[in-house]
């Protein structure tokens, strides 16, 4: 999603100037006659449209349909009405996994947003070094699988350097991923490590849109960095911050890889996030209908968040005038 220009669809399309067409022969064979560039456009749009319909539109509709069926892949889907939803509402594991997911999202988003904002402001106010920006981005180049494995090793109870340092400082070793209370915060922080640099760069893009004169003027007036942050940076960044926030919330609701590699939902379902439960229902128990119903629930939650956040974004913009 483009952030620097957040209202692009309203821009007027740059059509072809009339009269240019008078050059003879140029349009021949490319389909341009009085209907515009219809035939050529059809050719150009075809592959993307096929991909869109087959792998995005159709699956979306089908996912909703499957949520009303009993389906195990082997026999045809059997219509069962709201049975899957009924089951979902009475499934304590579903509610538990939703709770775990929300807990994960809250920690992940809270820490990530604050850290990313801090990094972005440091990158803007301290130095605009491209090298530093590149360094901050490096964890983003790792897969969640790699990030999960590395931190699994660093936080290992016996041999991990993290726990060696903790022990060296005289504290008790922490079973980060094997303990019910620590596991979710740990996974949330691992994903912060991987994603914070990217989020910081997105916010940095927003910061670059703030005219530097404002800081210089404030400085002449004797404003401190702290004051400039709250009076200039925060108000002007708020719309961008809101857009970045909505994208990261939607992204972090979809946590799966790190859980799958590090804890596999354990200990005692403590990290059984919704995605993992959906995956297990589908591929562990072949309950594709039930898994689809939970996917629909996730879609509903995400849509609600999107709507809510768009409202907040708009509120932020009108606030600034």
């Amino acid at each position, binding site marked *: *999603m*483009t952030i620097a220009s957040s209202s692009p669809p309203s821009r007027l*399309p*740059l059509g*072809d*100037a009339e009269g*240019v067409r008078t*050059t003879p*022969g*140029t349009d021949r064979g*490319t389909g341009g006659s009085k209907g*515009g560039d219809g035939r050529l456009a059809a050719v150009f749009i075809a*592959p*993307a*449209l096929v*991909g869109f319909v087959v*792998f*995005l*539109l159709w*699956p*979306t509709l*089908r996912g909703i349909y499957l949520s009303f069926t009993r389906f195990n*892949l082997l026999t045809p889907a059997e219509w069962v009405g709201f049975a899957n939803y009924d089951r979902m509402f009475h499934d304590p594991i579903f509610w538990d996994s939703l709770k775990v997911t929300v807990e994960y999202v809250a920690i992940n988003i809270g820490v990530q947003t604050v850290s990313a904002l*801090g990094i972005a402001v*440091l990158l803007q106010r*301290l130095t*605009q070094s*491209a090298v530093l*920006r*590149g*360094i*901050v981005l*490096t*964890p983003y*180049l*790792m897969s969640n*699988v*790699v990030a999960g*494995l*590395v931190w699994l090793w660093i936080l290992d109870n016996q041999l*991990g350097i993290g726990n060696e340092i903790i022990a060296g400082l005289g504290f008790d070793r922490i079973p980060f991923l094997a303990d019910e209370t620590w596991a979710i915060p740990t996974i949330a922080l691992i994903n912060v*490590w991987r994603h914070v*640099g*990217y989020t910081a*760069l*997105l916010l940095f*893009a927003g910061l*670059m849109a703030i005219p*530097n004169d404002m*800081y*210089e003027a404030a400085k002449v007036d004797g404003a401190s960095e702290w004051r400039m942050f709250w009076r200039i940076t925060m108000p002007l960044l708020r719309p*961008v911050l809101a857009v970045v926030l909505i994208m990261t919330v939607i992204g972090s609701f979809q946590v*799966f*890889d790190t859980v*799958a590699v590090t804890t596999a939902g354990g200990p005692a379902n403590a990290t059984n996030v919704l*995605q993992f439960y959906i*995956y297990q229902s*589908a591929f562990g128990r072949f309950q594709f209908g039930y*898994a*689809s119903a939970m996917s629909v629930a996730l879609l509903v939650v995400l849509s609600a968040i999107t709507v809510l956040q768009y409202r907040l974004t708009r509120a932020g913009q009108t606030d600034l005038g």
Partner: protein
Amino acid sequence: MAAVTTTTTTRVRPTGRRPLSLGRILAWAAMGAIVLVTLLPFYWILRTALSTNSGLAGHASDPLPVDPTGTGFARALGLESTKDAIAQGGAGGGLKFWRYLLNSVIVSTLVTVCQIFFSAMAAYAFARLRWRGRDQVFALFLAGLMVPTIFTLLPNFVLIKELGLIDNLLGIALPTMFMTPFAVFFLRQFFMNVPREVEEAALLDGAGKVRIFFRVLLPMASTPVLTLAVLTYITSWNDYFWPLMVSYSDNSRVLTVALAIFRAQTPQSGVDWSGLMAATLIAALPMLVLFGCFARRIVSTISFTGIK
């Protein structure tokens, strides 16, 4: 004070020298800590990969590799005999690392080249061609941005199964090969901002629209296309959930899936950390190199457009 030195210059750089204050020292210290937390895990991967498992047990916090050796890498690459691997606390199962690497390269290349190319074509049609229903179709594409990927994964799996492409590299690539709404959206933005005169000049020179797309607009878009391509490649390379659903054997196993299996295969008591970290490094290295080649352009494109 600072204002005095910059009276004549119109563009004031925020990076200009300022007196070192306590605040700035603290800010630099914070920056240093961030860099440290960001980069130390990478060093720790390397240090562990070059150590032996028996050595690690006794010297968990040594900053340098313990008993420096290449056996971790040999094991990860499947160059060590099964017996040696097990003796080293490694996986007993066969590892076809080169196969997984090749699979990852094939899938990511296929996805990136096709997705960017088809998305660019569609973006051009949306931005520069006039046809009936264009705005409606584009609105549909935009709506597609709202659908989270997780939602389409299960139905797509069913579809790929029906197409008989389970455990096939094409099955992994197919759903993202033709387009993503974002790629279309992002490139359309760029094409719309190209001045109309550029196109008119080419038309007057007798170039057709197809030619204009390939010879004029696409080359002009090389920086956004390159950035998008590298990010697409990285995303595709790092993808785990979808390949995990579709892969069942070495035929279609990509590196991320193979890594997770490698981890699952190592003994529960006494994990093969050396081999695991070596494998991790090998899996991550291509992306580090790729990024290293284009870092400057990518970082500035993200910094100034905020593409996601």
